[in-house]
């Protein structure tokens, strides 16, 4: 069975909640999700969470270094290096997918994040599910929450 629009709304809620926790007056604008033939686009840093159990596939958060540096600053983390940005993008992907268990339940099993560095048009992941891209506009930058589950 494929993901429904209702399922995708759950991920939108989790993304909104993450950015609301970062700053008192969040400026996140979430554009309507769109479907792609492949999972993407990938920006400079991508955290990928493999999912198993009731759903099979992956949830990814992808962003450019500039946005991740802004988030590090809001978290009062002084580091701006590659390692910190890799760590952060994986942790955001982990938080968004882990939070989704509130709706999907404990059989929505997530693994530790894999991180890809470097922009590309798509991830070489064959999940068999529909590939949703959810644009997250925040402080003049765009990140994507990518969901491919079945």
């Amino acid at each position, binding site marked *: 069975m494929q993901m429904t629009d209702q399922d995708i709304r759950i991920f939108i809620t989790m993304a909104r909640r993450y950015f609301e926790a970062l700053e008192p007056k969040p400026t996140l604008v979430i554009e309507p999700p769109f479907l792609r033939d492949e999972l993407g686009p990938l920006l400079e840093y991508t955290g990928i969470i493999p999912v198993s159990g009731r759903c099979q596939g992956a949830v990814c958060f992808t962003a450019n270094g500039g946005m991740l540096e802004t988030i590090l600053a809001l978290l009062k983390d002084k580091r701006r290096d590659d390692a910190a940005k890799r760590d952060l993008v994986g942790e955001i992907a982990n938080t968004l997918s882990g939070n989704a*268990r509130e709706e999907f339940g404990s059989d929505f099993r997530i693994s530790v994040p894999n991180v890809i560095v470097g922009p590309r048009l798509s991830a070489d992941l064959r999940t068999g599910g529909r590939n949703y891209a959810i644009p997250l506009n925040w402080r003049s930058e765009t990140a994507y929450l990518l969901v491919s589950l079945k």
Partner: protein
Amino acid sequence: MKLLIVDDSSVVRLAIERDLENGHIAEVDQAADGEEAVRLYREKLHDVITLDITMPRMDGLTCLENLLKINPEAKILIISALRDRSTALIALKRGARGFLCKPINPEELREAFELLLTD
């Protein structure tokens, strides 16, 4: 007071350390996975432990059991992205003293920490 922070994300470990900075804490150790946490805890028997669940090598729920085998009175606060009720219940049933969900709210974290100290 000795604090052990266990999370595979260095961003989270540093954020927890900063959020809990106060006069109570004399020493902070960090571990990036459950195995490292068990080794450090056996050495130092920290007063409070914050523990993530989804980690490589040894997950947080297995780590929780191992820490409690070393010291059944260990004060362990779970801080996890897993927001489902059943995971929280399992952790509390196995002996965790509290459960917080990520993203971390610093005020909630400090409150939970103070509760643990007075427990």
